[in-house]
């Protein structure tokens, strides 16, 4: 036997049925399949369905869907004054909520990012509302904000102020849902900001201090620019979240008074599940999707330009 040519050569030369690459591919697909399947069934499926529904006239009661092309969009955008009122409400809600939420979140994070006695307690206090049920939260606030005998107004009365009937006057109702929503959700952004602040090396601040920077200068010239990526993420998710607000409105005002807090997500719900105009609701949902997508892209674009 010729030892210099091992017999195994022949076997090695034959291409195996499963190459290493194929096998790795199969394994990879196997591992991601639960997520992929979930994504297809629970996300992509409904999304495609909504696109289709948005082009039908389908009253849930009649069980009959008729294809109407872009009529629903045409009706919404050009023939329905309610729609623009609702969009305006959503925009007011977002403009009120997003800056307030972010400013408060950053302030809390700056105060709570460094360890001190009791810091965990305070973080917990501000984060707890995030994980409480939105419905429970709204019920409690509805109770506190009652016009007569509400706790808030009783406290105001102590300092001689007669509080309004918060949830019964359109402008106050909007302010009330914004503020109570901010208090509920601010903890989440606070945690994101705390994480980002803790990732800023201590040396940065010390080097700046040594060079004579005041606390304010350290913040504006070093910390804030370094937080930019986090700020963008928070801006995007908070804006999206504010356009999607539903349970809060549902419980506290039901869209009233005088449709003063009737926001887009709630309007979609009303159309779909109260008036059973499924096709019309689907078209509204598509429009909301486009609005949110556009806002996100604008924010990302601004950020890109900022770094160049």
């Amino acid at each position, binding site marked *: 036997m010729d030892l210099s040519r091992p017999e195994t050569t022949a076997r090695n030369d034959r291409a195996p049925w499963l190459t290493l690459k194929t096998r790795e591919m199969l394994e990879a697909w196997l591992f991601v399949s639960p997520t992929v399947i979930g994504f297809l069934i629970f996300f992509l499926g409904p999304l495609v369905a909504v696109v289709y529904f948005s082009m039908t006239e389908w009253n849930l009661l009649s069980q009959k869907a008729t294809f109407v092309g872009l009529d629903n969009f045409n009706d919404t955008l050009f023939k329905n004054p309610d729609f623009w009122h609702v969009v305006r409400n959503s925009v007011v809600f977002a403009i009120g909520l997003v800056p307030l939420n972010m400013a408060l979140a950053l302030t809390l994070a700056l105060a709570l990012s460094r360890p001190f006695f009791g810091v965990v307690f305070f973080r917990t206090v501000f984060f707890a509302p995030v994980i409480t049920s939105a419905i429970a939260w709204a019920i409690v606030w509805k109770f506190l904000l009652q016009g007569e005998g509400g706790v808030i107004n009783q406290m105001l009365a102590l300092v001689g102020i007669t509080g309004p009937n918060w949830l019964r006057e359109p402008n106050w109702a909007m302010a009330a849902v914004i503020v109570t929503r901010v208090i509920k959700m601010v903890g989440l952004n606070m945690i994101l900001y705390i994480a980002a602040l803790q990732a800023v*090396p201590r040396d*940065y601040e*010390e080097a*700046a201090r*040594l060079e004579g*920077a005041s606390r304010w*200068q350290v913040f504006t010239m070093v910390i804030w620019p*370094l937080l930019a990526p986090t700020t963008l993420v928070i801006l995007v998710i908070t804006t999206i979240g504010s356009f999607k607000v539903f349970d809060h409105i549902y419980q506290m005002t039901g869209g009233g008074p005088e449709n003063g807090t009737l926001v887009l997500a709630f309007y979609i719900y009303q159309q779909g599940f109260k008036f059973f105009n499924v096709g019309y609701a689907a078209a509204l949902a598509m429009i909301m999707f486009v609005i949110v997508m556009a806002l996100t892209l604008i924010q990302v674009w601004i950020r890109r330009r900022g770094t160049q």
Partner: protein
Amino acid sequence: MADVVLKDIRKQFGATEIIRGVDLTVDEGEFAVFVGPSGCGKSTLLRMISGLEDVSSGELHIGGRRMNDVQAAKRGVGMVFQSYALYPHLNVRDNMGFGLKVRKVPVDERDRRVREAAATLKLDALLDRYPRQLSGGQRQRVAIGRAIVGSPDVFLFDEPLSNLDAELRVHMRSEIAALHNRLKTTMIYVTHDQIEAMTLADKIVVLRDGLVEQIGSPRDLYEKPNNVFVAQFIGSPRMNLLPAAEAKLISPTHALPASAVSVGVRPEHLRVVEPTTDSLSATVTLNEYTGAVTLMHVELPGGQTCLVVDDKRDMPPIGTRIGLTADKDNLHFFDADGRAVS
């Protein structure tokens, strides 16, 4: 330019005292190096001088002024951090000019001083780059440049070279030495690398557990260490330490000091001879050839191991019985407490 004087400086973190009474004078224009094992308090001491850490007790004077309660920014010190602390969102120019900007120095003066410092450090071509676009050595230079721009009276360096690879470290070491020569500013430099300490320092401060073990020129510390710790800390490879009785064999003419219990002799001072009755006999256990020198490990009859450094190519092979001797001037005697005796 200023001198730095520490009088019985102490630092407590909670209940533990980390710096336990340090007295030290760094003269104007001097290059002082703090060395010591990890955790001995080098950084803490440096940060106390900079003002980033307050002084628990004792007196700190810079340029004749008591600095205990003076803000860090007003002490006239510039610091180079181990991490460089360069701001990732600012380019080299803005990083270097940061201190001037916060102090509201006019733009054209700021620009002039940044360009001056950049020229000193050969950073001219890099001014518009961001830290992430620089190599380790370039970042290091920017960090130094940033300190220079503020024209401080005292430069403080905390292990500035420890993130660089060996070759670059040697190069930057010589650049820092050259910089000191040019600027003639007082510099205090922390390292745990004793070669860095030896090559850079006018004055070395050996620290251990928050106390000064010895202060002196590199040569003082090498030739006349105060105690076993300094003797073994300074010099590479470290000094051999043997029972004092062996001294007779290493250097027969030497009279043994009365209180000596151990004798130290540096590996580079041992000479290999034929084994005789008046030399220290040993058996070769390992030869490490490094090119310039060979490190020979030997075992003594008592079982201790001992290191010999020689620049000869051909060392006796493993297993050979050899004799070792040294000049009497190269022996160091220590008493039972590890203090040097003569």
